[in-house]
Each structure stands twice: as C-alpha cells, then as structure tokens.
C-alpha cells in the first residue's frame, strides 16, 4: 500500500498522519467491497454502484479531519456509503416519477459472472420491494456479514430496530423467493 499511499499527504498536512495512513489503507482494502455493497443495495446496477462508491470515498476523505476515531473507520465509512446509496435511490425515484429516461447502464460483458441472470433479477426485484430499513439490514447483515449492532450503527438506527427489520425482511423474502427456501423444496416433494 505504501506506493499508493503517498498521494494524500501533501494536500492534507493538517490531518494527523496516522489517520491519513489508516484511510489510505482502508481505501485500498475496501474498494471492491464498497462497490459490491453498493451494487447489492442498488438492486444490481453496476455502473451506479461504482459512481456511488467513488462519491462515498471522496466524501469520507473530505470528512476525515472530523473523524475522531470514536467509531471504527469501517462503520464510519459504510455509514457514508449507505447515505450515498440512499441519495442515489432518491434521485432515481424522482427521475422515474418525472418520466425522465435513466442513463443507460454500461455493462461490462466480461463481468457478467456465472450466476443466473433471471435469478439475479428476481432477487433484485424482491429486495426492491422491501422497505429501506429491511433492505439495508438484510444486505448488511446477511449478504455482507456485518454484525447486527454494526449494521444498526451504519444505518443510524437502534439495534432493536435493525433486528426487527432483519426478521421482517427474511420473512418477506422467503415468501417472494419461495423456490429458494429449502423447507419449501422439502414440502413440495
């Protein structure tokens, strides 16, 4: 990371060096994960996920002097990222309401992956029908592996509220994606 790291220091001499180093290491190790989380929270829009992740890193960099280390840098950054996702979804919602055509998503043909595109779209639609809190709680805890209290801090909610969202999200998704439920498979046999 040291080769990548030196680019922040000349501009930000007033930020303590250790914090800047920590942020640089964080950016290097969390770039791909941030894009992945944004991808899942944005319903599988790869281009938007990259834009949102970029914006979150830039905002976090600007806010770095105010970061006092009271929370983990991961929690602090992911809260910024989730806020950027919310902002993007609001923007997308407003554009859709005004019938403004959305910009075409530029898909990398080599990056389609091996997954089933139909299943991916169905999961995306099912997640989209959840409330914001349910969607965020489910993605953060079950798909990204955050603890419930970490997810609650990222969402800016009480832990109990996050648990409630999580439970309801699971119930709703099991209903919508019945064919993925192993219990349903057993019942139908």
């Amino acid at each position, binding site marked *: 990371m040291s080769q*990548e790291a030196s*680019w*922040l220091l000349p*501009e930000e001499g007033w930020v303590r060096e250790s914090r800047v180093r920590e942020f640089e290491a964080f*950016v290097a190790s969390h*770039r*791909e994960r941030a*894009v*992945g989380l944004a*991808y*899942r929270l944005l319903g*599988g829009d*790869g281009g938007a*996920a*990259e834009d949102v*992740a*970029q914006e979150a*890193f*830039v905002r976090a*960099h*600007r806010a770095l*002097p105010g970061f006092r280390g009271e929370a983990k840098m991961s929690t602090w950054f992911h809260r910024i990222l989730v806020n950027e996702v919310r902002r993007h979804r609001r923007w997308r919602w407003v554009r859709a309401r005004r019938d403004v055509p959305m910009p075409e998503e530029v898909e*990398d043909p*080599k*990056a*389609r*992956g091996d*997954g*089933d595109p139909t*299943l*991916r779209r169905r*999961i*995306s639609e099912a*997640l989209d029908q959840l409330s914001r809190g349910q969607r965020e*709680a489910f993605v953060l*805890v*079950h*798909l990204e592996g955050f603890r*419930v209290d970490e997810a609650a801090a990222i969402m800016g909610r009480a832990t109990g509220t*996050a*648990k409630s969202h*999580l*439970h309801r999200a*699971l119930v709703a*998704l*099991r209903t919508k*994606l019945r064919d*993925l*439920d*192993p*219990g349903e498979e057993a019942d139908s046999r």
Partner: protein
Amino acid sequence: MTKEERDGERLSPRDAQFVQRVAEGFAPPPRSEARQQAFRRILEERLRRPSTTGVGLPALAGALAMALAAFVLLRAAPPAPTQSEPSEPLERVEAMEIPSDGVLPEELLVGVGVRDDAETLPDDYAAIDGVLLGS
C-alpha cells in the same frame, strides 16, 4: 424458533441455507482488471484534487470577516491629526475691526471678486456692466 433466531442474530439451518442461496444468486459480478484499474485511477485523481468546499469556504468567510472588522475599526477610530495650517488665534479674530456699516473689507472677499465675474460675462452684458454696478 429461538430468541436469537427471531432477532435475526442467528439463523436456523433452514434460514441459513435460504440466505446462502440469495447471497450466491445476487453476488456482484466480478469486475474486469481493466475496470478495476480505471476505478482506482479515477478515485485517486479525485482524492488528490484539493477540496474547494472544505478549505475554500472557510478561507473566504475569514477574509470577509477580517475586511468587515477593518471597516468597522476604521469608522470608529478618531480622525488622525493632519498637518494643516494653524488656525487663526481667537484673540486676533476678535481684534479684527468690522466697519460699522456692515461692509466687509475687500481683503475678505478674495476669490469672489466682481471683476472675475465680469470677465466671464457675454459682450452684451459686459457693455452694461458699469450701469448695473453703478460705476
């Protein structure tokens, strides 16, 4: 269903398997190396760029505040003493004699002389200058 399972902190084996399937079915597609490098390059450029909102606005606000403070201080300060001619001593002014008919001596009318005005009059008026002034 246990309390932990109800709270979502621990999943039942059935729920765990369901979540696993959702996670696999909705995994972000792997990004190509070129795309990752482009993302990294753009991000580094943006992070290197100096922030205009973070530093520029406080600096501008500070400069405005200093200018305002300087303006207020200059207005409130007493006028600085200047090197002007000493004023006429009061005793001397009082000692000056004013004619009893109220006509001021000519030396007090410097700069408002009648002749200067007459020189600027048109010829027609200059011709009757003497009549108007009774000379």
